[in-house]
C-alpha cells in the first residue's frame, strides 16, 4: 500500500500553479487535502505522473459570503468551512459536513477538492447540485464559471479540464422562508453513505410550500436532483403528507446494487431519507426550533 513514483511541484502562487498546470497538461493531478487522492494512489487505483501541490496557496484558504453566495476557496478544509461564521448563512453546509468522514479527515480534506473529485457517495457534490451552486475553473488562458448541473459528468469525472484549477465553489445562501435537511445511512459512523439525501423547501408568502427539491448521493453516477414541488405545493408545512413525494422519489431514482446494498434497499432508503430530510426542511422553513435529522 505505497503510492507509485510520481513527480512533484509545489507552486507558491496561483499564477505559478496555472503555468505549471498548463505545461504539464493531462500529466498533472492537483493535490489539495489529498484525503481521497493519496489513498487512491496507495491502492494503485490512481497513478498520476505529476502532482501539483496547492497547499502553499494561502490565498485560496478562505470561506466568505457576499452577493448571496457562500464562497469557499480551494484550500479551505472541511473543518474550517464547518466552523466558519460565513457558512451559517447556508445551514445545509454544516448539516452535510458533519457527515463527511471523521474530524481527522475533515481537518485536512478540502470542500472544493471533494467536489472536484466527484465521488458519487460524497456529500458535498450533492449539496452543490441541490443548491444550484457553481465551480470557478481557472487556467493560464482564462477562467469560467460552471454550474453544478453541468459540472458532474460521471463517477469521479467532472467538467474540470487538464490545465484548469478549481479555485472556488459558490453555494447560494438560504433564501427567506426556506429550510434545509440532510439525512444519510452508513454502516459505520463516518463511512461513505449507502444512500443520502439533501433537501430544501421554500415557502410562499402565505406560508404554504412553494418549492421542494431533494438531491441524492450514492444512488447514481452523479448527484441526482429531483423537483418534488408538484407533490407538496400549496400545503402548509404542518399539514403536508409526504407519501406522494416519497412515492415519486422511489419511481425516479435508479440505484445500482453493489457489495454494500442491493438496488431495492437503496431505493427504499431514498424514500425513508427523503421523508426525514423533508421534515427537517419543513420544520426549519416554518421557523420551528432546529431538530436533529434521525
Amino acid at each position, binding site marked *: 500500500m505505497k503510492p507509485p513514483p510520481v513527480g512533484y511541484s509545489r507552486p507558491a502562487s496561483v499564477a505559478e500553479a496555472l503555468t505549471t498546470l498548463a505545461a504539464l497538461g493531462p500529466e498533472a493531478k492537483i493535490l489539495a487535502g489529498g484525503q481521497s487522492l*493519496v*489513498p487512491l494512489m496507495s491502492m494503485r487505483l490512481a497513478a498520476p505522473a505529476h502532482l501539483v501541490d496547492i497547499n502553499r496557496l494561502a490565498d485560496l484558504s478562505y470561506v466568505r459570503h457576499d452577493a448571496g453566495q457562500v464562497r469557499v476557496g480551494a484550500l479551505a478544509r472541511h473543518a474550517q468551512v464547518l466552523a466558519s461564521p460565513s457558512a451559517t448563512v447556508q445551514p445545509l453546509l454544516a448539516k452535510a459536513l458533519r457527515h463527511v468522514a471523521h474530524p481527522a479527515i475533515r481537518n485536512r480534506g478540502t470542500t472544493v477538492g471533494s467536489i472536484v473529485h466527484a465521488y458519487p457517495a460524497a456529500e458535498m457534490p450533492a449539496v452543490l447540485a441541490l443548491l444550484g451552486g457553481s465551480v470557478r475553473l481557472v487556467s493560464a488562458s482564462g477562467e469560467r464559471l460552471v454550474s453544478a448541473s453541468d459540472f458532474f459528468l460521471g463517477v469521479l469525472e467532472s467538467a474540470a479540464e487538464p490545465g484548469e484549477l478549481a479555485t472556488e465553489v459558490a453555494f447560494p445562501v438560504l433564501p427567506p422562508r426556506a429550510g434545509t435537511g440532510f439525512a444519510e445511512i452508513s454502516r459505520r459512523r463516518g463511512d461513505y453513505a449507502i444512500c443520502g439525501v439533501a433537501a430544501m423547501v421554500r415557502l410562499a408568502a402565505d406560508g404554504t410550500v412553494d418549492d421542494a427539491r431533494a438531491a441524492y448521493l450514492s444512488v447514481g453516477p452523479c448527484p441526482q436532483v429531483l423537483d418534488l414541488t408538484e407533490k407538496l405545493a400549496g400545503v402548509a408545512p404542518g399539514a403536508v403528507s409526504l407519501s406522494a413525494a416519497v412515492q415519486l422519489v422511489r419511481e425516479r431514482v435508479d440505484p445500482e446494487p453493489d457489495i454494500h446494498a442491493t438496488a431495492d434497499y437503496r431505493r427504499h432508503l431514498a424514500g425513508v431519507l427523503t421523508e426525514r430530510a423533508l421534515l427537517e426542511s419543513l420544520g426549519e422553513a416554518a421557523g420551528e426550533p432546529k431538530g436533529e435529522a434521525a
Partner: protein
Amino acid sequence: MTKPEELHEVAMTVNGATRTARVPARRLLSDCLRHDLGLTGTHVGCEHGVCGACTILLDGAPVRSCLLLAVSADGAKITTVEGLAEPDGSLSAVQQAFTECHGLQCGFCTPGFLTTITAGLRAVPEPTDDQIREMVGGNLCRCTGYQNIVASVRRAAQIQRDRAGRP
C-alpha cells in the same frame, strides 16, 4: 524504473525539534516519521485513512499521517505520540488516564487514540459522553470494546482539571 527517483528535501518541526529528510514525493508522512526519522511510535494500520492508528497532530490538529505525503508536510509542526509526555518525562494526562482505566490492551491503536484525544480535550476540555464518542469515532480498537477508552477520556479531563488546580 530506469532512472532513480527524484528526492526532495523536507524540514519539519517534530515534537519541538527540527528534523530533515530527503524523500521521494510518494513517501507517506507515516513512513517518513517511522523510517526516515526513526519515530516508530506512530503505528500504521490500514494505510487508507480508516483505522486512525497513524493519527498525528499537524499544526495542532489531528490528521492521518498515512493520507499525507511527507513533501506536503514540509515546514509543518508535527506532534507524534513520542511528543505527548510532559517535559519532565512523566505521563501526560491522557496517557495517565489510559493506564489507570485500562484504555489499551495490545497497544497497536493507542498512539492514534492518544494524539486524537490530546487535541480533542484541548478543543473541548469538558466533553459530554456524546462528544467523547464523536471525538474517538474515527479510531478503531479491536481489544477494549471502547468502553475503557471512553472512561479514559473522562478520566483524562479530570486529571487535567486536577493538575490545573481546578475543581
